[in-house]
Structure formats: structure tokens, C-alpha cells
């Protein structure tokens, strides 16, 4: 089975376990190229990948100042939706939620599948300098 298929299975599990509070799940390299996604359309997934990669890149510039890497980001949108981002060495997992989501449940699910998705999807070139 291809890596992207295995990752897609995990993303589907994330969405189903979140009980309808996660609309879109994307696993992407840090350069913005998606590895796998579960989204309403390919274009939305690709936009999401690029935007998330840019946001993580911008925040990682702070890591030298803060002497710590960025691990997770929670972005709240005006419409009460959230974008939860989990970063690995060379890859990113991003979840776009429904408005006013159950953040407790989503954070638990995120932590539950972080390790699995990292193992299946790899960590990208940045993980092997």
C-alpha cells in the first residue's frame, strides 16, 4: 500500500472520530506539497497545505528567539472555525474544524494519531538533514 493511502486512512479515522467537528484534514510537507488529504476538494486541500506551510514557516522564525521549536498551532478564524496544526520535523498535519468545535476531543484525537501519521507518512527531507 502506498504511503499516501495509509496516511489517508488515518486522516479518515481522525475525521470520523471527531464526530463531524473536523471538515478537512491535510498532511503536507513543509514546502506546501500535500502528501495526503481528506477534503471537500483538491483545490481546498492544496490551498490549505500552502497556507499552513507558510504559517508554520513564519512562526518557526521565532524558534531561534524562543529557543524552542513550534509543536502545535491553534488558529481561530472569525467564523469560530479553528485550524489545528501539528508540526513534525519536515511535515505538517493540519485540521480544519467546524465552527465552535469540541477542542478537547480534537486535541485528544490529534495526539492519538500524531505518532501513527509520522510513522506512516514520514517526516520529509527536513527530518534528515
Amino acid at each position, binding site marked *: 500500500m502506498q504511503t499516501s493511502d495509509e496516511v489517508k486512512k488515518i486522516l479518515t479515522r481522525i475525521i470520523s472520530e471527531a464526530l463531524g467537528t473536523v471538515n478537512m484534514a491535510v498532511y503536507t510537507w513543509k514546502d506546501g506539497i500535500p502528501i495526503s488529504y481528506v477534503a471537500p476538494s483538491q483545490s481546498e486541500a492544496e490551498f490549505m497545505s500552502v497556507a499552513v506551510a507558510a504559517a508554520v514557516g513564519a512562526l518557526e522564525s521565532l524558534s531561534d528567539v524562543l529557543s524552542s521549536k513550534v509543536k502545535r498551532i491553534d488558529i481561530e478564524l472569525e467564523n469560530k472555525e479553528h485550524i489545528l496544526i501539528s508540526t513534525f520535523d519536515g511535515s505538517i498535519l493540519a485540521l480544519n474544524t467546524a465552527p465552535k468545535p*469540541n*477542542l*478537547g476531543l480534537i486535541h*485528544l484525537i490529534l*495526539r*492519538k494519531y*500524531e505518532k501513527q501519521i509520522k510513522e506512516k507518512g514520514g517526516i520529509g527531507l527536513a527530518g534528515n538533514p
Partner: protein
Amino acid sequence: MALRLLATPFSELLPLILSIFSAILAIVLPLYIYKYFKGKLKGLTKIEETIKALEESLNKKYEELSSKYDEKKFEDLTKRTTGIEEELKDIKIRINTLDNELKKLRKPLFPLQVEEEVKEVEVDTLQQMQAYYPFIKYIAIITSQGFTVETLGNAVIEPEKLLEIVKLSNMFTGSREITLEKKDEVLYIFYIDSLEDLDIYGILLAEKPMNIKSLGVVKKVLQNYFRKKELTG
């Protein structure tokens, strides 16, 4: 003669005086002893006579009784007494059993403050849990971040604030559970599980009368419910 006696020194007369005195004592002392014991002996003979009379009357009574005593009748009597004793034992046992049955049937005239034993059950939803334990007014599962994972009922205080109490308690006492009681409610906050950097806590708000033992059972049910969901991998 009298003058001669007066003229003799006292040292020469002393043996003579002593011999006369001892002769008188030898005659008088036995007479006195005889007189003293004669009176006592008379009393002794009287006692002896009364003892003899008593012995005779006892013998007579013994003879009368032995003539009336029938060995068979005595055996029957002993058998009957043992039979009565056994019947008494049976009656006592029956009284105890009836008393116990009566206690079971007897209903209190007013609601007792004694609680019924709460049993552990397996539940699929929090609604089911509240149906099994109607004294629980509020249930919450919350992460250490302060986000609620699942809730049921209306919270009196925001769960995030309650979580702060447990965190403070953990800092000072090392305990990951805390019970707060007020007049008619008990609030129980406890640790359920951990997932990476997240700790998961449970919150129960119960009506009184409610003891900690019953809350402990509900706590286990909530822990099992959460683990069943397999959210922590």
C-alpha cells in the same frame, strides 16, 4: 518455836516456804482443772446427743424417700426434659428466621438516610450513566488544557475553574482527586487517564445523601466509559 523461826535468816527459810507452796499447788491445781473441764464435758455430751437425734431423723427420712423413689419414673422425667430442651432450641431457631423475614418485609415509616448499594455498570453514553445513577446532576470529561471532551447536565461552576482546584491540590498534596461538599451537593474531580502531554480528568456533581464509596463506583464507570472510547490509543 516462833521466836526461833523469827530469829532464823530469811535465806534459810526460803526453801521451806517454797516446799510448802509447791505442796499446796500440787493439791489445788488438779482440783481446779477437774472442776473447769467437768462443766465443758457436760456441754459436749449435750451436743453429742443432739447429733445423734439428727442422724436418726435423717435416717428415717432417707428410708421414707428411698421407699417412694421409682427409677423408671426418674428416667422418663430425664427423657422428657431433654425433649423439651430440643423443642425449645427449634423454637428459638424459628423465631430468629421469622424475625429476619419480618425485618426484610418491614418498610420504614419515613425515608431512611441509608443509601442503597450502588453497582458498577457498563455504559455507552453519558445519558445512560445518568439513567443508572440519577443522583448525578453533572458529568464532564476535561483535558488538562481546560477543554471539555464531553459533558452532560448544567455545570454550576465552569469546569476549567474546577480543574484549577485539582491542579492546586496536586501541587500541595500530590493528590489528583478532590471532593468539595456543600449543603446538598458533592463535587468530585478526579484523574482518568493521560495521553502524551495531556491529562484527562472527570468531574461529577452529585446530590446528597451521597457517600464517597458510591461516587467511587461512578468514577470507575466513567473511567471505563472513557477508556472504551479508545481516545487515548
